[in-house]
């Protein structure tokens, strides 16, 4: 399982319908739409401040991983 690809896909999926929500990370206030775009583009700051922690949580919290997989319509394999 490629956790980084999974995290980016999950962010993009969650953002659907709430693109205008905002997140404050890396000393920047950005919309969810911008977050998804920057995560996909591999923006260094977003990677360090948000994508890496997202990947870490996917790897270390099985319940969280299952919930994210369910959102994406995938199974845990």
């Amino acid at each position, binding site marked *: 399982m490629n956790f980084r690809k999974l995290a980016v896909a*999950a*962010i993009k999926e*969650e*953002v659907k319908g*709430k693109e205008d*929500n*905002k*997140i*404050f*990370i*890396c*000393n920047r*206030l950005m919309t*969810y739409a911008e*977050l998804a775009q920057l995560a996909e583009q591999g923006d260094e700051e977003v990677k360090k*401040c*948000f994508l890496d*922690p*997202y990947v870490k*949580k996917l790897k270390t919290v099985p*319940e*969280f991983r299952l*919930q*994210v997989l369910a*959102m994406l319509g995938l199974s845990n394999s």
Partner: protein
Amino acid sequence: MTLLVAPVFDNVTTYCIVWADNIKSLLTNLTVIEGRKVTRAEVEDALVDKKLFIFYDHGNETGLFGSNTEQVANSNNIDKLPLSVYTMACLSAKIYGVDVWRSGRVFWGYYDVFSFTTDSLPEFEQFANSGITLISQGKSWSEAYDSTISLGNDLAKGLSDSGKYIASVAMSNNTSALRLYDSTHAPKETQCTFRRIALALFGAKGWNLRRLGKRATLD
């Protein structure tokens, strides 16, 4: 005898001042400076005779910002601080908080960036305000810290249970970034290689190498 400082000078600070406003009712003998750019001089003046300094908003490794350009508190004015400092400022526990603790004071802050999302503002406010809420109810710093870590973990789980995975990751980040430095919680991280070795060898006493060295010489 508390000083609460909550500057407003950008988009982010307009969110956090709401959280700061909601702790005012918990505190007695409170002096408040908020809602605008704040200068170092007025903070230093207002700190006289205070027992607790609460600061909401931007910080970095070396201090707390009252505006885009000025740190109202950093390692050069630690002597003006009261015995305890409580802040939600990003990164402040990295260097500044350690310096505050090494001066014999209690420091509550964040080792990494404090994040929040606008779809879950009540949860992030609850987490940011948890420590000072518990302290105002008579809990010790240590008890407040342990309870706030538990709260952060519970909130992160609740957010993911309700499908807010982005907010959940941000909450988990905040929880793992929260630090309390007091008599029972010494800082464990350092940027300095020699200090890292000293901490590995001597534990918390590694922060007082000069004192250890003097004692060894006297012995």
